């Protein structure tokens, strides 16, 4: 059993907890889509030419897929960057409110995962150990 220090545990906890946030909201948008339709900004509908419901479904699928990649640590940095920027965009579109501040904080935490890179409990690390013979990667 590999030893994991508290310092090494921190990014694992952060990554897992944030992944669960994206997975929860993503699945909610897929299974309870009608409740989210009112939250789709008008500019997204006019720019994409898609219905609000389709945008909710796409956003849900997008968050679930990248959330799964983030929780398993598959392309950790890329997944964290995409989700972080995505959530930052959402928070900026919300104006100045409690939800926007919360989302801004979560997006910054996700971007922090991007800056940190891969941790010990990721598929990326497993790949590096097995196929590249190194764990020195960030």
């Amino acid at each position, binding site marked *: 059993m590999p030893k994991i220090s508290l310092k090494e545990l921190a990014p694992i906890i952060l990554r897992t907890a944030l992944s669960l946030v994206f997975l929860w909201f993503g699945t909610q948008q897929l299974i*309870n889509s009608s409740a989210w339709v009112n939250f789709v900004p008008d500019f997204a509908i006019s720019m994409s030419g898609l219905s609000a419901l389709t945008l909710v479904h*796409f956003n849900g699928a997008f968050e679930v897929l*990248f959330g799964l990649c983030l929780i398993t640590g598959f392309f950790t940095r890329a997944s964290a960057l*995409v989700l972080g920027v995505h959530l930052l965009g959402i928070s900026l579109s919300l104006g100045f*409110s409690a*939800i926007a501040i919360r989302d801004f904080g979560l997006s910054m935490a996700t971007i922090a995962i991007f800056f940190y890179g891969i941790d010990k409990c990721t598929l990326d690390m497993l790949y590096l150990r097995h196929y590249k013979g190194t764990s020195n990667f960030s």
Partner: protein
Amino acid sequence: MFKKILPSIIFVIIVVVIALVITFAFFTDENSQSASTQNTYSVEKETLNSNIPSSSNNVSYTLAEVAKHNKSTDCWTTINGGVYNVTPWIEKHPGGSEAIISLCGIDGSLAFNGQHGGQENPQKALASFKIGTLDK
């Protein structure tokens, strides 16, 4: 540098394409289903509000009347001078049902403005539940 990030770019493109495929392959049929659900929902809402006079803006309620509707099965709240029957919204609120239940029978202005103040879409959603104004 580009060679190093190329796999990540390809990965992101693949995931976005998969998300698009999932959206259009698995939810296209559901779109119409959801639309019908929304219609059903509107009908349910109308049924729920059928006991209430139709000209909602002309009807005024006192805080004491609002306070009687303080259950999750019969939930009224007052926000910024309007009275709303938010019973159908409890199970559908993206932020969780508890947030709405906590407003049943009371003045929810502070909570609503704190969470959604200045946001257009929550205002629109709220407006659809209006049944009258608060009698001061």
